[in-house]
Every structure is written in structure tokens, then in C-alpha cells.
């Protein structure tokens, strides 16, 4: 025991590595393996029912010439950037605000979390009703914000913005919850010390709250960026990629190829590309933020 490191100098009973196996198997079979299979399928031709044929690089060379991919990729990147830029500051501020113990904040945040209770399908259906240019709210509000006919969802320029608004309504509560929980874990003594030093509210936010929320910002951003890059249920339900191809994000294009034209092989090529893109992005975020060295924020206090 003399040679043991400081970390393991105790004699406490410890679980062995087998304890992680059941979770690892489940994760490996239904989340890990699909990652490999999707790459494999991208070299095949498959209609979803018949046999799977190996066709080499045909799908990939077709993809390079497919102009819809470039359009869809651009729309996806736009959607992702808009999502991050809008949702991160809003949910961070809301989360920090909701972490306060005041009664009014408790009551209001209980309402703010309500969208969490609704499914994607429900939210998309309700917003579809609101955005309906004939009977919806869009018909009433549209004229005041530059849409005399109320047709925001049917216009090429604003349809994507409508999707961004719907996604904000849907996902900001989740990220707010992450930030609220993390803010409440910040040791009170840091604020007490800051108050003694004469720091005002804004300074407390930038000097204490924001640095302490660093891990949460990374987690939330990874989920948000990779999520919105690959998410398409809302598009599927509200716009079906339209009008024209104005909201045809890359994952929705993949869905169309796979489950509407039954070109599973070609769709897998798109999926593989999406997976590579998402993994690369999250690796970059994780690497540059030192996240894998994650430690308890309370350690050493």
C-alpha cells in the first residue's frame, strides 16, 4: 500500500470493471454498432426489404454530385448557428434567473418548464395551427410584422425562422433546466466573498456565475449543436422540407431518401456524413474545453 497513489491510498471496497458492462453492451448494440453499420451501409444498395448489395463508392460519388446535399447542408448549418446563437444566451440567463429562490421566480419557472412536458409531435402540431395563414395566429399577427397575408410558414425566407422559433420554444426549457441546476450548485461562499469585495450583480455574473457554469455551457452546446444538426422531426411535421426546399435540412433529406424513396444505401451515405460531422464537431468542442478531465466543481473546496 505504500506505493499506492494519493488518489487510491484508502482501503475502501471498490467495484470491479464488470459493473459497467451491462450499460456498455446496451449502448454498444443500439447506439455504437449503428455508427459502424451506417458507414457499412453507405457502400451498399438496399431498398429496405430485399437483399443488401455491395456497390463500392457509387453512393459517395453520387453524393458529391448531388446539389441538394449542398443546399441542405447550408440550411442545416444556418439552422444550427441560429439555434445556438438564440438559445444559449436565453437559456443561460433564464437558468441563472430561475436558480434564484424568490417565490415569483419559482412560480414563473414552473410555467417556463411546461414545454418540456409536450412531445415534439404535440409541439409541432400546435405551432402548425398557430402558423396557419388562414385560421392561425399568423393571420392576425402577420400584417404587423411584414406578412400581410400571414403566410410566414409558406414563404421561402421566413419558413426557416419559423422552425427556429418553434425549436426555441421547445428546447430552451431543457437547457434552462441544465443551467438552473448548475447555478444552484455554485457555492454561496463565492458570492458572499464577492459581496464583501464590493462586486455588483453584473460583476458577480461575469466573474463567478459564468466561469462556474463553464462545464454546463460545454454540455449544453454539444447537445444543442449536434442536436440541431441532426434533428428533423419538427421539419417533418410542420413543413415537410418546404416551401420548395427552403427547410429541407440534411437529416430530413436523408429521411426522404430512406423512408420515402427507399434508397436506404444512399440515405446511409448522408447519415454517415451527418454522423462524421456531428462527432467531429463534438470532439472539437470537448477537446478545446478540456471537458474529458471533468471534475466535480466542489472538489478541493
Amino acid at each position, binding site marked *: 500500500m505504500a506505493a499506492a497513489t494519493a488518489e487510491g491510498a484508502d482501503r475502501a*471496497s471498490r467495484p470491479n470493471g464488470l459493473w459497467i458492462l451491462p450499460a456498455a453492451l446496451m449502448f454498444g448494440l443500439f447506439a455504437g454498432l449503428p455508427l459502424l453499420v451506417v458507414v457499412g451501409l453507405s457502400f451498399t444498395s438496399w431498398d429496405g426489404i430485399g437483399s443488401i448489395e455491395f456497390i463500392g463508392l457509387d453512393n459517395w460519388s453520387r453524393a458529391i454530385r448531388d446539389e441538394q446535399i449542398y443546399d441542405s447542408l447550408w440550411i442545416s448549418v444556418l439552422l444550427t448557428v441560429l439555434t445556438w446563437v438564440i438559445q444559449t444566451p436565453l437559456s443561460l440567463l433564464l437558468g441563472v*434567473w430561475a436558480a434564484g429562490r424568490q417565490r415569483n421566480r419559482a412560480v414563473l419557472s414552473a410555467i417556463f418548464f411546461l414545454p418540456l412536458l409536450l*412531445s415534439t409531435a404535440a409541439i409541432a*402540431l400546435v405551432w*402548425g395551427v398557430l402558423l396557419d395563414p388562414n385560421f392561425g395566429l399568423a393571420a392576425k399577427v402577420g400584417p404587423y410584422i411584414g406578412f400581410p397575408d400571414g403566410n410566414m410558414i409558406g414563404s421561402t425566407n421566413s419558413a426557416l425562422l419559423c422552425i427556429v422559433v418553434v425549436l426555441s420554444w421547445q428546447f430552451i426549457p431543457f437547457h434552462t433546466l441544465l443551467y438552473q441546476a448548475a447555478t*444552484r450548485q455554485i457555492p454561496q461562499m463565492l458570492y458572499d466573498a464577492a459581496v464583501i469585495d464590493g462586486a455588483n450583480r453584473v460583476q458577480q455574473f461575469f466573474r463567478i456565475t459564468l466561469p462556474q457554469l463553464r462545464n454546463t455551457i460545454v454540455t449544453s452546446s454539444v447537445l444543442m449543436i449536434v442536436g440541431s444538426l441532426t434533428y428533423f422531426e419538427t421539419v417533418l411535421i410542420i413543413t415537410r422540407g418546404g416551401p420548395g426546399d427552403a427547410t429541407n435540412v440534411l437529416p430530413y433529406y436523408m429521411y426522404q431518401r430512406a423512408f420515402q424513396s427507399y434508397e436506404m444505401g444512399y440515405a446511409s451515405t448522408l447519415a454517415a456524413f451527418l454522423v462524421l460531422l456531428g462527432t467531429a464537431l*463534438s470532439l472539437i468542442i470537448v477537446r478545446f474545453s478540456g471537458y474529458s478531465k471533468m*471534475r466535480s466543481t466542489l472538489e478541493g473546496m
Partner: protein
Amino acid sequence: MAVTDERTHLRGSGITVGVPVPPSPRRGRRFRSGRRERPNWIAGVASIVWLIFVIVPIYVIVRNSVQSRDAYIEGGPLSPPNELTLEKFEQVLSGGFWTYLINTVIVTVATVALTVGLALPAAYAIVRSRSRLVGSMFRVFLLGLAIPAQACIIPIYLIIIEMNLYDSLTAIVLPTVAFGLPLAVLVLTTVLRDVPRELYESMTLDGAGAARLLWNLAIPMSRAGLVTISIYSALGAWNSFLFPLILTQSEDLRVLTVGLYDFRTQYGIDVPALMAAVLLSALPIFVAYLFARRWLIAGMAGLGGK
């Protein structure tokens, strides 16, 4: 520096002073109970704006579920609640709703049980085991946080077909659990890391093995985290749309989300019926929220109160 800061600090209360005021011991104690003792007006106004944005769609759901189709066409989505009727709920409840509800409950319960049952020992091993394998698997789980479920739908479809699980509720549960595991493991790992090492040592001295340490120490100390991941995975399962849409097809295996999607085709422009269906599909979750929110907040208070 301190002078200016103090001046800013007191501006909201209408007092401007040019000299630093040392906080009295009493004042210091007040800070302990509430983080901010002065109301934040800007945040207050902003929160009202946000409240309107959040509440309008919810009002539309509730309001329109209790009116007739003709009243909706006349009054629009934001009409004041005058004429009330429950006919739309009857219409929805007599249209296959109960089957969808039961299927959704089965999927949700199975998903939560599997997620907690798998994530807890995994997180325990990650925090306490010295095995190198566990450390590298933790990194795999962290990366798994970012694996996009949507982009994996085609291979999952293939794997489910190959396992002869296509068109079954199991087909929905297994991938939902797999994709929920990384977040569950991460949350539990974070919570378990804060259990003091000394407690493990002293309980070991009393003769506890690894399993008893999990049961008698780690689980009680991470109750808040367990509640959190249960709620997350329950919501994920209840609301999942793509997996049931792709991996099942029979009508008697339909879950609520896919049912709603079909309601739209079925009811078309009958918005009140659609809203009644939306409301009914969210009602069990809403009731659970009223009950579990206490747990969630108590759990977080437990975390933050250290």
C-alpha cells in the same frame, strides 16, 4: 474600485453613497438565505416577455380543446373562453386513444427501469473502480452524448429487423434506452463524485463490500440524481416520435405521439379535436410534473445546499 462598486450596488434602492459601506454581520447572514436581496427589475420585465411567449401556445391548446369547430373558425386560436364544451374530448377518447396510452405507458416504464438499472452500476463503477477499462468506457459514453439518434435511424431499423423485433414495443424501448444512457451515466457520475471518500472507507471498515456500498451509501446519497434521470428518461420515452414512427407499423402498437400525428390527417381542419388530443396526450405527464416537481426541486436543493 470598491467605492464605485458600492455606489452601483445601492443605486437600485435609491441611495447613492460615495464611500464603501462594510457589510454588517447581520447583513451577511441575510445574503446566506437569499442570493440577491434586491429585486432585479430588468430580469423581471424580461421574464414577463418570456412568459407571454411560453404561455400563448399553451393557452391555445387549453382554450381550443373546449370549443366547437365552428366556434374556432369564427373566433380564431386566441378567442376568450366563452362557450365551453367537452364534446371534443369524447370524440378523441372514443378514437383509439386508450390503446395509444397503454402502449406509451408500457414503453415509458420499461425505458425508465432499464435506464436507471443500467446507468447506476455503470456510474458507480466509473467513479469508484480502478479498472482502466472503465475509464476508457466513460470516455466512450461521453462521446455517446453526441451520437445523433436521428442519423442512426437506418442502421437501427436494420438491426431491429435482423433481431426480429420489428413492429414490437421492445423495438421502441431498446434504442431509446441506449441513446438515453450517456446522459444518465453522466448525471449520476457527477452526483456520485461528490460522495465523500471517507464515507466509503468507514463503511468498508464496518465490513461492507462493493455492492453494499452502492446500496447503502451511493444510492441514498444520489437520490436527487436518480430522480432527475428517471424524469428525463421518462419524458424521452413518452415523447419519442421517430423510433415508434419507423420501428412499428400496426395500429394496436401505436404510441401517443404517432397517434397525434395521425389525428392530424384524420381530423384535418378540426383544430379543437386536435388540441383536445394534444392536451389528453400531455395530461398524464402534467399530473406527474405536479407530483415530481417537488422531487426535482428538492433534489436540486439537496445538490445546491452543500
